[in-house]
């Protein structure tokens, strides 16, 4: 790795030395060990979509090993950037192969897609969050089917996969222990929920605004510049991740 590479990896002589020793098996193993937390972090980001956490970590680890094997230190790209792209690609492929979680019946999948579609337009038309009755009136679904679809949307695997994993231009490594401003992961936060560090800056920000600043989802959506529906989904996913004992 040349001395004038930008980024932290280029400045870490140990990592540079390990890549210089590639394809030495011990160097490869050490690199995999060092960057395993990145793979685990990315696997967690794809959680809550109907696949087992252990399976996702396995897929992400495979992506990491591929990234280590294919990384070219002479190119001016940080390894974390390259590895993140490779691992996320591997995880997306995994989801594409599997689609929905196996426990979601076809009829519920179809209902969920229908509900999500209708909900988006109702939100705009009504200028507020729709009720279940609003959705029932716009579809051929029963109230029970709509509720089932809303619950099942947590297991939906494809709609949200193309969303950025963090703020634009950041990689997962930047999100772990990075410096934030108002929504910094302070000692007070960490004492309450140690897993906050595993969330992206945007997810932490949403939690901070909702639970420390008492803002509504509508206000947060305006502040961040995303839809209320998106805020709602990110809030739910973040809280689920904090509760997850894995």
């Amino acid at each position, binding site marked *: 790795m040349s001395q004038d590479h930008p980024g932290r990896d280029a400045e870490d002589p140990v990592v540079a030395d390990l890549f210089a020793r590639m394809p030495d098996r011990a160097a490869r193993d050490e690199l995999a060990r060092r960057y395993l937390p990145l793979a685990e972090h990315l696997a967690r980001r794809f959680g809550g979509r109907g696949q087992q956490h252990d399976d996702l970590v396995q897929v992400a680890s495979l992506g990491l090993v591929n990234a280590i094997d294919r990384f070219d230190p002479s190119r001016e790209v940080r390894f974390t950037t390259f590895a993140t792209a490779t691992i996320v690609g591997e995880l997306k492929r995994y989801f594409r192969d599997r689609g929905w979680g196996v426990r979601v019946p076809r009829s519920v999948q179809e209902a969920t897609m229908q509900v999500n579609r209708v*909900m988006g337009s109702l939100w705009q038309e009504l200028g*507020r*969050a*729709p*009720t*279940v*009755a609003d*959705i029932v009136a716009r579809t051929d679904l029963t*109230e*029970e089917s*709509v*509720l089932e679809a*809303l*619950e099942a949307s947590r297991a939906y695997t494809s709609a949200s996969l193309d969303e950025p994993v963090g703020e634009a231009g950041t990689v997962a490594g930047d999100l772990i222990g990075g410096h934030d401003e108002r929504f910094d992961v302070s000692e007070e936060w960490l*004492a*309450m*929920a140690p897993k906050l560090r595993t969330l992206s800056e945007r997810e932490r920000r949403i939690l901070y605004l*909702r*639970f420390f600043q*008492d803002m509504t*989802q509508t206000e947060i959506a305006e502040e961040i510049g995303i839809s*209320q529906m998106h805020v*709602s989904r990110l*809030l*739910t996913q973040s*809280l689920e991740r*904090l*509760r997850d004992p894995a």
Partner: protein
Amino acid sequence: MISSIEPIVVTGPAKAETVALLRTIAASVAARRDMDVVAIEEFRIAVDEAATLLLLGGHASRLEMSILPTNEAGVEVRVRTDLDGSAFHIDRATSWPWRVIRQLTRGAELTVDDGGAQVAFLVGEGPEA
């Protein structure tokens, strides 16, 4: 709180499967109170966090939820475990689930006695608990 109808009471083993059941029932009741999808989701989260808080507090065998629509467009909820109160340990000041519950609901109370530990709160429209 005033209500002329009987509460819905659901009870099961103090396990994750029961939490999922409580969440589903909460959502169903909320939908019938004409809450919007955001309120329903936040209600679901509050039930989830209440059950999580109680299960984190100590080893219990049963988990119970009592849910009572109020005369207003609200719902009164009590989530309870049968854990001996003396064995229950949660620091409200540093508990993340407790903070979430307090923010998403009204009149949240955590009580502990010999018969168990309980989280009670109100969601939707209506007077304070």
